[in-house]
């Protein structure tokens, strides 16, 4: 049997379609007992289709137990009557404890249509949306927007149910302006009938239609997804704007097109912004050019606004705006942006920033008072950088300001210049430490000040920019330290977790060094000596732990060493120790690996807990020396060896 569900809804926000479909597919599949479903969505419909549904559930049988064998006839007759069978149909069987009257009850499976009719209305209203509304009044159902029609078919039959006065049926609805308001559909002709009514059900096909525009535009996948989910019959059109607007910064023009108008930018052969755009309409074409003209006029107004703001902003230089930041709150508990500016500038200086770096820090937040940033907040920093350049600041200052909000994510690149990197680190570090100090600490999914992103950005810049910073000193607060360490782990998530644990346990004041150690560890991990040596170190650590606090390591006394495996381990270890210094990490690790036979032999033949306390003390000291000397790259005891995993 086939299944078709179409929830007809007023325009669903584009970014919510995927989540709704994921839920609906799984939920319907579970109820209908099918694993392969097809889900589709347009702004006005959520669609689930499936084949191979059972007409009804299989019949079931179970044995019902009645009175004991010796029960009075009345009780037996009563049991039979209650079960709706004649007394002679009962059997006497043992239930394992006693002989009893019983009978096998047959329950016919319910019709799938009945199951769905009961389950669907509940299941539909449980669709998780980030923000729902109720309608038509208090106590009404909650959904993303009002549901206006429902198609629910099992085979050819309507699965009857109702949500907020809307009865399920077999009638769908077409494109708002180009299609019929109501028309019947079947499982077989569903896509075709919708197509006749200017609705393309398949998102892949809508995407292909958008991609088919003759103008070559810069493909921006998130924008493309948005447009696929905003349209039922997408048709791209190409418009143009006056070339004189190209004198405005490309960043401003692209932002207006991308974020305010949902247009694709067009580049010329040299990769420069061209005076064109691609808009995606929800229509079948624009033969008279009315839509193009309308969009061009809107863009012109937007660009005029931007130019108006740009010109107005030039009347006051960034440097003269810094004092105005005293009126802009950074955060109630953390004071104004002027105070933040001063802190960040001081931090840049302390971290070794030069005059340009400090100047960039002083000007970095001044663009928050400009009209253009008030209008296009997503351009903060970028606008500051552009203004700095236009106002005669050095290129280094301008670039540092321009980049200082970077990286916006793990995937984004870090600021291009050292000054920009340092400014970005200082700005983020100030926010991070300030918020923790004020008790504004992220918990669970709540991170209103984006501190995770800030900390992540610092880690990324330090590692990828190759910065040597006194992290231990900068992150003195233990809570900040712990929070930051989480971000360090996240940054190194492509390494095996035990290698990361091992490397971090040997210190992480210098993250560039952590990465080098990790790379060396990963290379050496697969060599034959590595894991056995790691296991040996784990054993050493355990022995020392068991020795307890009364054991105090001193100097190894070679005279107390027992000739054979013990002296051999001592001489091997001291030999390796002496040649480590000039080696790169990989070489160091390999050298440590070469101690394997000596370590193995030692544990094979030597009893650490010797009866003579002096010998015992000396052996523990030897092990302690090994642990101390050879754990600076990684704490090998953190390595999960294959024998442990079994």
């Amino acid at each position: 049997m086939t299944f078709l569900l179409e929830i007809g809804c007023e325009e669903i926000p584009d970014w919510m379609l995927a989540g709704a479909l994921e839920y609906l597919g799984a939920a319907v599949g579970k109820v209908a007992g099918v694993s392969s479903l097809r889900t589709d969505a347009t702004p006005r419909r959520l669609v689930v289709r499936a084949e191979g549904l059972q007409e009804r559930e299989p019949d079931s049988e179970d044995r019902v137990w009645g009175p004991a064998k010796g029960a009075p006839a009345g009780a037996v007759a009563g049991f039979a009557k209650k079960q709706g069978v004649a007394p002679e149909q009962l059997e006497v069987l043992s239930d394992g404890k006693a002989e009893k009257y019983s009978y096998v009850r047959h329950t016919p499976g319910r019709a799938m249509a009945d199951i769905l009719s009961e389950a669907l209305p509940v299941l539909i209203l449980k669709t998780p949306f980030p923000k729902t509304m109720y309608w038509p009044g208090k106590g009404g159902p909650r959904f993303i927007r009002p549901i206006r029609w429902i198609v629910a078919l099992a085979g050819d039959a309507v699965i009857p149910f109702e949500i907020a006065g809307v009865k399920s049926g077999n009638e769908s609805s077409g494109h708002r302006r180009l299609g019929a308001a109501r028309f019947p559909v079947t499982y077989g002709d569903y896509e075709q009938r919708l197509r006749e009514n200017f609705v393309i059900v398949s998102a892949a096909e809508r995407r292909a239609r958008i991609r088919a525009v003759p103008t070559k535009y810069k493909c921006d996948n998130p924008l493309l997804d948005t447009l696929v989910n905003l349209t039922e019959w997408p048709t791209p059109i190409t418009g143009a704007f006056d070339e004189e607007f190209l004198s405005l910064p490309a960043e401003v023009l692209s932002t207006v097109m991308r974020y305010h108008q949902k247009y694709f930018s067009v580049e010329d052969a040299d990769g420069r912004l061209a005076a064109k755009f691609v808009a995606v309409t929800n229509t079948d074409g624009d033969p008279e050019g009315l839509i193009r003209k309308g969009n061009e006029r809107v863009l012109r107004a937007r660009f005029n606004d931007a130019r108006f703001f740009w010109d107005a902003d030039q009347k006051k230089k960034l440097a003269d705006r810094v004092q105005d930041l005293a009126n802009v709150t950074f955060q109630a508990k953390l004071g104004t942006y002027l105070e933040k500016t001063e802190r960040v500038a001081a931090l840049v200086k302390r971290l070794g920033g030069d005059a340009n770096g400090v100047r960039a820090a002083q000007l970095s937040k001044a663009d928050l008072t400009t009209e253009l940033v008030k209008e296009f907040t997503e351009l903060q920093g970028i606008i500051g950088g552009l203004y700095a350049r236009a106002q005669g600041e050095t290129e280094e200052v301008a670039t540092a300001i321009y980049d200082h909000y970077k990286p916006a994510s793990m995937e984004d690149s870090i600021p291009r210049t050292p000054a920009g990197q340092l400014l970005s680190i200082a700005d983020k570090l100030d926010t991070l430490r300030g918020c923790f100090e004020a008790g504004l600490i992220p918990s669970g999914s709540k991170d209103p000040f984006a501190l995770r992103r800030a900390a992540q950005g610092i880690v990324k810049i330090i590692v990828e920019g190759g910065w040597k910073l006194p992290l231990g000193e900068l992150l003195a607060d233990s809570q900040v330290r712990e929070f930051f360490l989480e971000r360090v782990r996240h940054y190194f998530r492509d390494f095996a977790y035990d290698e990361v644990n091992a490397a971090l346990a040997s210190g992480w004041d210098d993250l560039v060094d952590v990465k080098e150690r990790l790379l060396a560890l990963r290379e050496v991990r697969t060599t034959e000596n590595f894991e056995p040596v790691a296991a040996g170190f784990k054993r050493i650590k355990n022995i020392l732990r068991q020795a307890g606090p009364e054991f105090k390591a001193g100097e190894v006394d070679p005279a107390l060493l027992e000739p054979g495996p013990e002296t051999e381990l001592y001489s091997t270890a001291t030999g390796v120790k002496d040649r480590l210094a000039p080696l790169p990490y990989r070489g160091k690790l390999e050298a440590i690996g070469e101690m394997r036979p000596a370590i193995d032999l030692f544990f094979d033949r030597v009893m650490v807990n010797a009866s003579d306390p002096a010998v015992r003390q000396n052996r523990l000291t030897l092990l302690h020396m090994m642990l101390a000397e050879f754990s600076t790259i990684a704490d090998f005891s953190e390595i999960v060896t294959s024998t442990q995993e079994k």
Partner: protein
Amino acid sequence: MPTFQEIVFQLKKYWGERGCIIQEPYDVEVGAGTSCPETFLRALGPKPYRTAYVQPSRRPADGRYGDNPNRLYKHMQLQVILKPTPADVIEQYMGSLEALGIDLSKHDLKLEEDNWENPSLGAWGVGWQVMLDGLEITQFTYFQQCGGIDLDLVPAEITYGLERLTAFLQGVDSVYDIEWTPGVKYREVRYKDELQYSVYNFETAHVPTLWQLFEIHEAEAKRLLGLYKETEDKARFPLLPTYDHVLKCSNLFNTLDARGAISVTERVGVIGRIRRLAVGVAESWVEQPREKRMIQ
């Protein structure tokens, strides 16, 4: 090509034919048609209601001395309230555009998510901005709460930005070039408003006086809300005049804000003060005995 006033006539006629009471603008200054008692208070309670009216809306911070072709201190909204929302509300709305002579089969219409919230009124809803050929011409909102109270019947609020809509229909780039009535441009009617209110709001408004006025209206609204709590004869209590004082506070706040007299930290606090008053009025309004009220 319809003139500005013909568009107003046309929309009023269209919605009047669909059961709306056509009101004239409210005579206390507001930032949006939503703040008018016709929307804010009538949205509350279980009685169905339909109304439409033009509301000049004052946004002191948006003033640009009449220099910017798209930004106005005072723009005109046509506000429609349909309570409860009819099932074909969007079709009815599209019909209003057709009634203005827009052939929707030749244009691109999209409903893009845009939720609405007015923190100083404790009001919010979900909805869309309606985009016509890339231009936002209407805000469409399903109210969920007013004055912090869940609404018994969910109204649809349709707010047309009249200047934008007219500029679109007349194909002009500046609102000042809109033809208000044959031979008269928008500039001739409104330029002085824009210039003089911008000068006042940004330059000449006396901040201590505005604060004083704010406090006077706040105190009066508070006093009245206190009286309402104590009075036995609630049915005839002047809640509508009380609400006028709340609106006065709101406009004074907006003016002070445009003047740069309110720091971001203070902002939250002042908004909270207005919200407490608005919530107080809304709660009293819902509770006020109904028989003395013509509607609601």
